[in-house]
């Protein structure tokens, strides 16, 4: 592939804008406050925040790609902060088993969403809204007072590094790579896109659409449980109401990263960049001492800009596709210009 084509493909790829925005904002904050790019800041808060938002956004995106949505993840993180601490500290289950139990619990909760959606035909918004409300109360019921975590292994999840890299960041990278492989390099991933792109077409092509949908929600639940463990470790206790509104950050990351809310579109690189941009904005504004309420406003504006830029890009692509692709003319012998048409935009998807 020559350099021009590489540039062209980069230019046409949906994620390029968001990656550039990420770099620009990061550099801007660093100019304003050089400490922002220091190793300790990169580890915490940036690294650990990115791990939490990123893992959540990846799970969330899978459900959006199938044409659904998972509103429950924010409440579930708060719930699993308490549950993981409770299983370990109150029940006395060894840390490793407590983690496994917590994650299985998260997956089971996702399976329940999938069951409601596929077997009972409940709308994904509603099925997960029930959990959103329920789990927001359940964590307080389990832990009216914070459950202190004593285990050093548990505390080490958020508190220790491998080399310079915090453990949650490693978890996030592993999950991001695994999700990329799933979506881009397995038939299951392709089927997830197909289910979101045209459910009826996928069904008639012999795809087990219900399995794919259930799977997406199960993974999303599992991701929420893992983020709950990370947050519990960081807080050093199972405290109720520890996080709120994270489902919206997860959805915003996905949308900023190019995941279509209609389903069937979106790639891991964009999702990761979207989550990173939100983390940089949030922590960067703190680093340059901007008031908390402005932070939310900035995130809102970032979301708006991302959506507008994406619409413009899609329009441009559609326009050039209309111009370039008139393949039915190729069958007409009197259309010699057909061969000279520019090639259409590079691979969609």
């Amino acid at each position, binding site marked *: 592939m020559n350099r021009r084509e590489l540039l062209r493909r980069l230019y046409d790829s949906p994620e390029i804008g968001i990656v550039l925005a990420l770099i620009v904002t990061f550099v801007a904050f660093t100019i304003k406050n050089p400490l922002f790019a220091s190793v300790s800041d990169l580890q915490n808060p940036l690294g650990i925040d990115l791990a939490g938002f990123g893992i959540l956004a990846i799970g969330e995106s899978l459900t959006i790609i199938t044409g659904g949505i998972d509103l429950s993840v924010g409440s579930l993180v708060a719930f699993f902060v308490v549950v993981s601490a409770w299983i370990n500290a109150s029940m006395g289950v060894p840390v490793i088993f407590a983690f496994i139990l917590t994650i299985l619990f998260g997956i089971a909760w996702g399976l329940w969403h999938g069951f409601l959606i596929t077997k009972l035909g409940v709308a994904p918004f509603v099925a997960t809204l029930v959990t959103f409300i329920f789990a927001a109360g359940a964590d307080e019921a389990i832990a009216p007072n914070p459950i202190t975590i004593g285990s050093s292994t548990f505390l080490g999840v958020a508190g220790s590094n491998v080399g310079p890299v915090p453990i949650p960041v490693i978890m996030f990278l592993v999950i991001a790579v695994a999700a990329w492989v799933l979506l881009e*390099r*397995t*038939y*299951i*991933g*392709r*089927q997830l*896109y*197909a289910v979101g*792109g*045209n459910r*009826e*077409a*996928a*069904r*008639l*092509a*012999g*795809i*087990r659409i219900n399995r794919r949908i259930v799977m997406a929600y199960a993974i999303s639940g599992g991701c929420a449980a893992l983020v709950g463990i990370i947050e519990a470790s960081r807080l050093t206790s199972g405290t109720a109401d520890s996080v709120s509104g994270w489902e919206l950050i997860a959805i915003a990351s996905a949308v900023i990263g190019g995941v279509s809310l209609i389903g*069937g*579109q979106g790639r891991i690189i964009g999702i990761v960049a979207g989550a990173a941009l939100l983390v940089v904005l949030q922590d960067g504004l703190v680093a340059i001492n901007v008031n908390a309420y402005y932070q939310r406003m900035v995130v809102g504006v970032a979301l708006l800009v991302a959506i507008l830029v994406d619409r413009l890009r899609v329009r441009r692509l559609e326009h050039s*596709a*209309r*111009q*370039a*692709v*008139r*393949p*039915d*003319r*190729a*069958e*007409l*012998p*009197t*259309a010699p*210009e*057909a061969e*000279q*048409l*520019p*090639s*259409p*935009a*590079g*691979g*969609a*998807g």
Partner: protein
Amino acid sequence: MPAEPVRLTHAVDTGKEELLLAGVRKTYGPATVLDVDRLVLTGGQVVCLVGENGAGKSTMMGVIAGSVQPDPGGEVTLSGDPLGAGTLHAQQLGVAMVSQEFPLVGQLSVAENLLLGRRPSQQRVFVDSRAMHAAAERMLAGIGLSVSTRRRVDSLAVAQRQMLEIAKALGTRPRVLILDEPTSALGPAESEHVLQLAREHAALGGIVILIGHRLNEVRDVGDRIIVLRNGRVVADLTPAEATEQRLVREMVGRELEGLVEVSAAQVGEPMFTARGLEAENFGPLDLEVHPGEIVGVAGLMGSGRSSLLHLILGARKPTGGRMTLGGKPYGPRNTAEAVAAGVGLVPEDRKGQGLLVDAPIRWNITLSILERISSRGLFLWPRPERREAARLVSAASVRCQTPEQPARSLSGGNQQRMIFGRWIAARPRLLLLDEPTRGVDVGAKAEIYKLIEEEREQGMAILVASSELEELLGICHRIVVLKHGRIAAAFERDSFSKERIIAAAAVGVQA
């Protein structure tokens, strides 16, 4: 002239309407898709427009309806009023278009769709429900469609939606009525009815432009037949001049090979059998399809053609009866089991049931074989998939620049061949085709028939449901006629008779 008394109560403006296109051009980059020097259409006539895909029919209609902006310099006027300021402006001037894409709102009722954007009462805020339904019923009665105005549109069959579209367009009392393949979703009786409505509207003084794919229909209904090729008007014919051969020659610019020669079906054990197959409002029904045999399913709309195919595919649950496939009991609980057992369906509604429109051709064409081409039953590597996609694109003669271009960039005929490619890939033992050539042009039709014949030669058993009788007569070894979900009659190839099939479908006589 209409055989029955004119039922339309509305009238177009009196006086001779005249639609003029002069020097109208449309170019996309280097490609000229429309180039009309001068064309005058007058009221009181049904003008039929024919041409292959990409000939410029839709572009021309788009220019008239305001959805396509022509290159500057041309002139489009309707009785002196200039058109070309967008769709809303064209509508206000009295241009109504019935497109193939059914832009109806599925979640709304029939009445709400009919009167969308035109509240019947003087009230500004609240919709007067009773008046709305009364008005809607009048509109439906005008075209002879009997469905409740309270039904949700997405519960209607495709053919009923098409009729609804026509009612909606007629309801605006258009000076120019554009019908884009209005009968492609309809059976013979409903088609005749729609053509009758077109004639009646012309008789009232309106300009009716009908884009047609069925040439006999075009000759039947048209007062004037215009052939487009490469964006130009290449022939302007009277019905007497427009023989089928002449039309095809003008459209294609070359003589078309005849329909596929049907060779004898293999005999022996049937590939598929159904005994006493029953579902709600369907059956009981017995059916056999042999390897290498093409069996046609004829019948009016609502006769159960699609139900039969969906029952076999496991997309609908039977309430009774037994099926076998390849001699073994067969009872899929879902489509996935059916596909795994060796059944495939090319669905009726290409856009709604077949395509991933925004995804590349590659994704579309490998959709039913993803598991098979994955290595270790999981990993879908780009290289083997691209190779497979390239092979299928050429096997199904999909004309594209690259398998990576989005499916939406293909013409209807090409999209249909792509869906065929999906099933050529899966090599099913029984292939179900639901309206396999709906909305594709003459040239593309012949190629689809060729694909069907190639698959048949490989020993595939094929069941085709179609509302186009000529199609079934042309390619099938045997035709079964459904009425109310039961087989009203069955015909072997040597006893095919159009008249008897129509009679069986309409009256249900065992022939």
